[in-house]
């Protein structure tokens, strides 16, 4: 554990150190390059805003109305029938849609079942092994103005599904 905490606190400063040492050695105008590169960031954040806002409002309406919860409740029996543990169903369904909601659910599952329970371990694994597909799509495509997404969403969602199934299988094999 100490190794991982040390690693995660050391890694960013070390990256900066390496970049600056090499750049200075190669006579790159470091500060000027940094400023030049950084300028792009401001525009990016602003061009991202409407995409992010639109998507987040839509998700907020769905969650706020209670429709998302109702849907999860409705679909749970089907998922339980194929062996998905009941408590994990909401997390599995929310993970691709909303990162903050998923993190909240994981925290709640770990809190109520205990971090070392089967559900706690499963929630931890699931949280780490899939990502918020809708957010990534919105941010990456939004920032550069891609309007037609092609198969991206389909591929992402199927991969999420497989990731969730994989987490259940792997955690069952390792910890049961």
């Amino acid at each position, binding site marked *: 554990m100490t190794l991982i905490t040390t690693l995660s606190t050391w890694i960013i400063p070390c990256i900066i150190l390496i970049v600056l040492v090499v750049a200075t050695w190669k006579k790159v105008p470091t500060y000027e390059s940094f400023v030049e590169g950084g300028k792009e960031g401001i525009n990016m954040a602003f061009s991202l805003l409407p995409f992010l806002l639109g998507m987040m409002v839509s998700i907020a309406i769905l969650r706020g109305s209670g429709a998302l919860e109702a849907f999860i409740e409705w679909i749970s029996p089907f998922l339980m029938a194929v062996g998905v543990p009941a408590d994990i169903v909401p997390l599995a369904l929310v993970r691709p849609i909303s990162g903050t909601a998923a993190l909240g659910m994981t925290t709640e599952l770990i809190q109520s079942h205990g971090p070392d329970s089967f559900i706690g371990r499963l929630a931890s694994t699931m949280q780490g*092994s899939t990502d918020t597909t809708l957010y990534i799509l919105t941010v990456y495509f939004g920032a550069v103005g891609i309007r037609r997404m092609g198969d991206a969403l389909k591929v992402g969602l199927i991969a999420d599904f497989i990731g969730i199934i994989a987490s259940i299988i792997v955690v069952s094999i390792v910890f049961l």
Partner: protein
Amino acid sequence: MVNLIWAFMAIVGILYAMFNGTMDQVNQALFEGADEAVTLSIGLISVLVFWLGIMKVAEEAGLLSLLTRFFKPFVTRLFPEIPKDHPAMGYILSNFTANLFGLGNAATPMGIKAMEQMKQISQSDKASRSMITFLAINTSSLTLIPTTVIAIRMKYESVAPTEIVGTTIMATLISTMAAILIDRLFHYRRVRKNKG
């Protein structure tokens, strides 16, 4: 498809609220969601400016092309559309590296930058083949060390907070490989359709 999903989520939410008396919550959620998005975008400025600045220095120092050369055999196969020495490769690789180490806030700027470079190659507002591959790998999550999860587990006094690292890596490996396979499957389906 994203148009449909976007409208669908809001329409279903509002209709559901009409019949279940949750209109108050919808009103509240609407503006909270908008607020949250602005906070998030503004909050992203610091991260974007910082990492894009550092990356620019790294690029000019030749560190990005070094990274690209190191992983060349692997990424040229994954992204056959991208010319071997194109800067897009460097950004794709730094995005992957940042993800692997759980540096979420460094991964996003590099991912956006990679997208920008790929858009320059395709010159269109339609997602290109390499963009879809890149997104598929990203959404399947490349985390080696899920720091946030470990932190939560520590907070709730787990006996072994890091014991899920192994299972996370295994599950990630499976979902990433699956993502690449599915991406290829969809790609060849598109190619066949265009010919036929």
